[in-house]
């Protein structure tokens, strides 16, 4: 019975798709229905006084605040500096992750030496690094970029190292039988085989970079979206706090989509 119904729905679905060829193209819009409904509920809850406006602003108020800050140009400086930190931090973390991931993936000795240490370091929460980094590098850009790099490093390192280590033995034997030599077998077999793992790592790394930038900016910054947030708390401006959260959500999603797109193009087999 259930099967029959499923088949029928399937048929109806494909028939509809035949009649309306564009129907599938707008399916992604369905994902916006629930968020839109939540915004409406949010508005109603604040408008009817369930939440006090000084604790949770109305959605429109948040938009107004962001728009106002964008109009005066204040907002762009914060966004730019945060993006810059995330960019350089990710760049640094991913680079070091690629180097150490490759070395430990290829050489058993390097893995034995480094992996236990790195595995335990990865379990240290991001905030725990902040005081030490401040002490070492001051409150300048260096400390923040390094903190973000720490965040971006671990997923890249872990995924790439296991990715290289787990390249199918079958393929390595092929490289051996056909005498590709060390360099060629890395270039043609091992590294391409590890690219999917690397991209999974980079995606995780970018995600953690956003987490770590909040940690860095909340505690020691005079600019940036994270600073805007803590400033909003000091000024008792929930609209600024919620606005900053939305900005993080926006840029976090944007960067994730970008990496996902790269992944889709690079790993297309």
């Amino acid at each position, binding site marked *: 019975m259930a099967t029959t119904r499923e088949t029928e729905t399937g048929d109806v679905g494909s028939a509809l798709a035949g009649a309306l060829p564009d129907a599938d193209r707008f399916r992604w819009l369905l994902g916006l229905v629930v968020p839109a409904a939540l915004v409406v509920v949010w508005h109603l809850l604040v408008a009817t006084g369930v939440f006090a406006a000084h604790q949770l602003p109305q959605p429109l108020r948040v938009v107004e605040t962001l728009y106002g800050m964008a109009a005066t140009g204040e907002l762009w400086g914060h966004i730019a500096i945060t993006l810059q930190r995330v960019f350089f931090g990710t760049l640094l973390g991913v680079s070091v992750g690629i180097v150490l991931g490759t070395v430990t993936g290829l050489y058993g000795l390097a893995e034995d030496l480094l992996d236990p240490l790195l595995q335990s370091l990865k379990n240290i929460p991001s905030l725990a690094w902040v005081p030490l980094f401040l002490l070492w590098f001051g409150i300048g850009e260096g400390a923040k970029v390094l903190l973000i790099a720490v965040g971006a490093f671990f997923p890249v390192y872990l995924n790439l190292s296991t990715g290289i280590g787990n390249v199918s033995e079958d*393929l390595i034997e*092929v490289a*051996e039988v*056909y005498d590709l030599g060390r360099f060629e077998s890395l270039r*043609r*077999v091992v590294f391409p*085989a590890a690219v999917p793992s690397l991209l999974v790592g980079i995606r995780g790394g970018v995600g953690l970079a956003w987490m770590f930038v909040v940690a860095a900016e909340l505690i020691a910054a005079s600019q940036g979206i994270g600073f805007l947030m803590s400033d909003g708390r000091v000024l008792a401006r929930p609209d600024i706090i919620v606005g900053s959260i939305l900005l993080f959500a926006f840029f976090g999603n944007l960067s994730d989509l970008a990496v996902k797109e790269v992944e889709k193009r690079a790993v297309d*087999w």
Partner: protein
Amino acid sequence: MPSTGEASKRDPAEATLGSEDPAADPALAVRGLTKRYGDTVALDEVDLAIDGGEFVAVVGPSGCGKSTLLRVLTGLEERFEGRAAVDGVDVRDGGSDAVGMVFQEPRLLAWADVRENIAVGLPADVDPDDPAARDRVDGLIEAVGLDGFAESRPGELSGGMAQRVSLARGLAYEPEVLLLDEPFSALDQLTKYEQQDNLLDVWRERGATVALVTHDVEEAAYLADRVVVLGGQPGTVETVVDVEADRPRERTDEALLAARREITDALGV
């Protein structure tokens, strides 16, 4: 009639052509080869000599060590007892460089197209981007019946097509000794016949030494000059059957039928 199972058990090497004439250095010489995996003995005191330009098939029940024998000869197994040499050079001292291998599974690079996959087999001193090398690869693509699929990725190919890519890769290597591990097992009957004849053409043109592992008695008799029957567990040489039929052979040749009967008897079926 080369020998009975009894005789070959006493001294199987006596049954092989290569050892009858000590002056002729066999292209492939195996003496007293014993290979253990832990407590399991995969091959026990195997002797085998294959002359240059000879086509030898190795048949035997599953688990008799057929594939292990090929793995030793390709240099993929470093530890074994006894001697295995190609043109007088031990396979552990670079003798395996002259050996090409077509694995039982296609073992293709998923991210590379058919052309790149075949080019993996090109000898190390050949630049795959060189026009002559390209022509050679294209010729192989045609020979294995994959015209029009040069740019396809392995994921777009059927199992039989993938196996033919793997075969073409082995042929690209132009080895002195070509080892094939059940290369036609995934092909439909018609394609199998085509590819068997294609292999015979290549063998005749290049004068290569070929050792083919198969469980297909008909295939062994049709292709080979001699059929080595491995038996038991651990694998030992049961007998060696000479296939007397003239080439080019008819698949229905009486001599082939006789050889098939002899092989089947030796297998104890």
